[in-house]
Every structure is written in C-alpha cells, then in structure tokens.
C-alpha cells in the first residue's frame, strides 16, 4: 500500500533556528497538507496546498511558516525561526481528491 513518508522522524533544534520538515506524498496525489499535534492536544490543521499554491492556511500558519513543493515529489514545511511553542508532532498528508487523506507517520520537532 502506498505511503506518505516523512523525514526526519525526530528533530531537535535550538530556539531561533530554521527547520525544514520533509514529506514525500503519494505519487498520484494532488492535494497536500500539514497538520500538527502539540503533546496532549488535538491534531490541528496548518495548511493545504494544491496546484503549487496554498489553498488555505490556519491562524497558526503565520509568516514564520512556509511550504514548498520544490521538485514535484517532495513537500516541505519550513519554520524560519523556531519558538519553544513550535514543539509538536507534525503530520504531512496527501490525497488524490479533496478527501481521503493518507497521513505520514509524523516528525516530532523538539525546540530547546
């Protein structure tokens, strides 16, 4: 069964540093998403991406965040200057249509 692959599985970074979280969506999928889950809290929508542009972003997705599909296969989430409160599990997802997500296994980001 096709999978969404996320790397790294765990990243530790210093506050103020830039991080890039990487995702390889399923190859024929057209919609891409990032969600995050702060420890003990619910999964929250960050951003959706379609046709090489952001479709929708949440209030969380401020100017510190950006997404990119640099080479037609990877889908990245960049946090420019990490804060302690960015520590969370970040999930990438993709879908062929508007629904029917497949999630990746997540990247645990720890900001120290």
């Amino acid at each position, binding site marked *: 069964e096709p999978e969404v692959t996320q790397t790294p599985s765990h990243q530790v970074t210093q506050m103020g540093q830039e991080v890039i979280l990487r995702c390889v969506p399923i190859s024929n999928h057209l919609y891409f998403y990032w969600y995050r889950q702060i420890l003990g809290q*619910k*999964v929250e929508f960050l951003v*959706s991406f379609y046709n090489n542009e952001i479709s929708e972003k949440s209030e969380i997705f401020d100017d510190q965040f950006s997404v990119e599909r640099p080479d037609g296969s990877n889908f990245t989430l960049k946090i420019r200057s990490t804060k302690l409160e960015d520590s969370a599990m970040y999930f990438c997802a993709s*879908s062929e249509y508007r*629904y029917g997500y497949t999630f990746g*296994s997540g990247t645990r980001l720890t900001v120290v």
Partner: protein
Amino acid sequence: AQRVTQPEKLLSVFKGAPVELKCNYSYSGSPELFWYVQYSRQRLQLLLRHISRESIKGFTADLNKGETSFHLKKPFAQEEDSAMYYCALSRTTGTASKLTFGTGTRLQVTL
C-alpha cells in the same frame, strides 16, 4: 465555526465488551465525518467515513444529524483495538479540504 467534541479522554473496557466512542459535532453545512485511529505512536489511519457506511475491523458509525453525533461502535472489543481514536469533520474550502479533529479518546481494552 466547526467543532468536534469527544467527551471521553479515556475509555477502558474488558475484552469482549461492547464499545462506544462518542463524537458530537457542530457544523452549519452538510458534514463529512471520519474516524481515525492511531496505534501506539504510529501514523493516523482512516478507520471509517460516514459516506461509505462500511464496517472496518468490526467498527461502525452512524451519522445522526438530529443529535449531531457520529459515535463509533463495536459489539465486542479486542485487545488489538487499544489505540487512540479521533473523530474528524471535513470541510471543503476553496480547492482542498480541511479536517477538524476532536481531542481524541484513548481506548484501553483489558483482559
């Protein structure tokens, strides 16, 4: 605004007992509802969606628009059902959709 409520953080049942994980939603439009399962730090996996009305691993869920509920049920719990369960509501915005998750219920099945 859309909201999904899962009132129980933890539900502990004995093996073979019936299970009902509660989910209530608030949404002004026509909802698309899903149940996702997360086994022990693994990825979120789609368990059910109300449109397909199918049964996966013995679980079923019926959308009750009058009560705005989408409870997940299974007649006989198995040990391997122990996991985190998330109810989610999908809203299509622009060209893509967006899931709003509940806070999740941890199901613990004991012998």
